[in-house]
């Protein structure tokens, strides 16, 4: 797969403070990338530089092999976190306006618009003013505007906030569909479970620097060392007395056990069978993205 979007030696400072410093970052075609990081990590600034809303102090952004320019904006769709629409305008007129700004024809926009309005159950609101829509509806409308021009690259900043589970599902399905069509989706969020659910790769950024750029599975394997998850009839007090257990805690009827030395699953299970009563399940405990996030960002752990 070709390199689709590349950030090369990008840096940006505001008032002498460096907000973003990315040596090299590449996005491939047809993948969903989770772009994660704590508040103020530099996510929005990075995205704004890709969107050419602000210019980097240094470095170069390449799109499809050439330096990114204004014309490329027609191939990118962006749903910012700070989003709102013209309240006094009608839903249909607004979609048309943004579609036209991206250079699409009236007939193309009309066809696509009707499809998407139908999909998001907004057809009846086509001629209503935006201020008459609920917050969730406005958000769906904003999503339609983001993809109305069939962009190759879709950047979504916290797309799920304020949506009910049904609409989250609709959105997730569309995102997956778009990926299957060969679109690249950069997905910035704090909702780790959602990122885990749909992203193949994640990028973790903190203090302007990229800490992790990995496939999620590999990442979780890397972070899972000597932690196992068991379900058994022994009480937590009994288990705590065992001398080979460094740390133990409860998680939904199960115990997460950290051994005091590095053990493979066979050795670990052996030790536990002898020491506990009636084991019902035994699993390698892979840390969730949430755990990894906390470890890396708070404790500064590295790969």
């Amino acid at each position, binding site marked *: 797969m070709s390199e689709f979007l590349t950030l090369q030696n990008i840096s940006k400072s505001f008032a002498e403070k460096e907000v973003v410093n990315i040596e090299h970052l590449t996005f491939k075609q047809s993948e969903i990338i989770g772009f994660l990081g704590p508040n103020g990590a530099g996510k929005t600034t990075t995205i704004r530089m890709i969107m050419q809303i*602000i210019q980097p102090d240094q470095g170069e952004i390449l799109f499809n092999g050439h330096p990114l320019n204004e014309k490329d904006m027609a191939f990118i769709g962006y749903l910012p976190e700070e989003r709102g629409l013209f309240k006094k305008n009608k839903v249909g007129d607004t979609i048309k*306006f943004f579609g036209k700004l991206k250079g699409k024809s009236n007939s193309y926009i009309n066809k696509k618009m009707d499809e998407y309005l139908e999909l998001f159950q907004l057809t009846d609101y086509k001629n209503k003013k935006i201020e008459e829509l609920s917050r969730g509806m406005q958000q769906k409308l904003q999503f339609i505007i983001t993809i109305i021009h069939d962009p190759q690259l879709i950047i979504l900043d916290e797309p799920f906030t304020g949506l009910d589970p049904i609409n989250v599902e609709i959105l997730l399905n569309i995102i997956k569909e778009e990926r299957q069509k060969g679109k690249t989706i950069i997905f910035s969020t704090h909702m780790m479970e959602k990122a885990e659910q749909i992203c193949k790769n994640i990028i973790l950024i903190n203090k302007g620097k990229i800490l992790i750029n990995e496939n999620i599975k590999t990442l979780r394997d890397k972070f899972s060392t000597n932690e196992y998850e068991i379900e058994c009839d022994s009480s937590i007090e009994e288990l705590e007395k065992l001398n080979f257990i460094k740390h133990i805690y409860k998680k939904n009827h199960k115990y997460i056990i950290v051994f005091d030395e590095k053990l493979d699953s066979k050795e670990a299970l052996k030790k536990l069978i002898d020491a506990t009563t009636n084991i019902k399940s035994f699993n390698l405990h892979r840390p969730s993205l949430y755990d990894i996030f906390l470890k890396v960002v708070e404790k500064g752990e590295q790969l």
Partner: protein
Amino acid sequence: MKLLEIIKFEYTTKVKTKGFIISTILIPALFLLITTLPTLLMRYQTKDIKKIIFIDRANIIPVENLKKLGEKIHTKFLIDQSYKELTKDSLLSIALQNNYFGYIMIPENVLEKNSMDFYLKNPANFSLIERLNSFFRKEIIKKRAEQANLSKELIDKITKRTKTNVYKITPKGKAKEDKGASFFLAYFLGIALYVALLIGGTMVLNSVVEEKSSRVYEIILSSVKPFTLLSGKLIAIALVGLTQFAIWFAFGGFLLSNAFAFMPSTGFISGIIKTILNQPISTWLLFIFYFLAGYFQFAALYALVASTVDSTQDAQQMQTPVTLLIILNFLFMFFIINNPESTLAVILSILPLTAPIIMMVRIGSIYPPVSHIIFSIISQIIGVIVILFLSAKIYRVGILMYGKPPKFTELIKWLKKS
């Protein structure tokens, strides 16, 4: 073309608003009211005949002359021998009790003392007092002439009034009769621009603040450059203003010709309206030019201010310096009408931010030299470019900033950012 799309979108949005429809109808209606109401009121007033007690202790005023004056100024002079003996206090109480307008007394020794008294309920009625003054002055002069044994013919000759005519000198050396219309033309042009700039500027201000507070900018900026966005907005709102002007011009003739029906055809106000309508096309072309020049300068400043704030309340505070600048022009207007050739007038009619209103006021009152107009036009074009450029630089940063409005020093930093 993105610019075109933005103009189209902004324009149709603005033209469809209730505010636009209301102001398009309401402003000419107000104008009509302001121009016709005074004449209508004056007519109403004429039906109401004032009564004034008149006492001539010197016996010098011929009663038939006084009656003639009374007819002209809708006043009935009450002449009764019994009044002659009354004191000032009792005359006042009679006037009050009967709701008379007042009393006028000519003392016996008026020819020597050179003074007489009017006691009136409303001494602010200047036109009435002026008529009374000139009448009594003339009668007293006549009396003195009689005492000097001049013949009646000679007296008539001496006291005959001379009619004065005022002409406006045009650059071609021709003279045009002017019954004060120049003053009102200058006044009209100045006020029209003043109002247009304030309304246009406020529209831009509100539009930017509204978009910023609804957080729509980041979505738009993913498709459009800030400069394109700003120019699109300014052009669209200018077009909205011009649309309004066009509607008024189209209906203006019709409305005014109907308005004539309520007015005396040779009256003062109809004279002014005729003067305004009879202005050469160049005046209107210059009017449109100065409207656009002034609009782009002030609207860009309003957009600058709006981009730095998040809410309408903050905007109200921050816009004050810009609004004061427009009001300053308005305050200069009256000085300029009276002194259109002064050095101050010439300078102000060339500088950016003052020329639009001041030059139109000068054009209304005199015919300024062509060189002044050319200088002024060039300076306006430069002014528009510079102000637009600076405003766009701040606007670009401001629309994405939320929180406390920036300090002046921060604005300077934004300007330096590339």
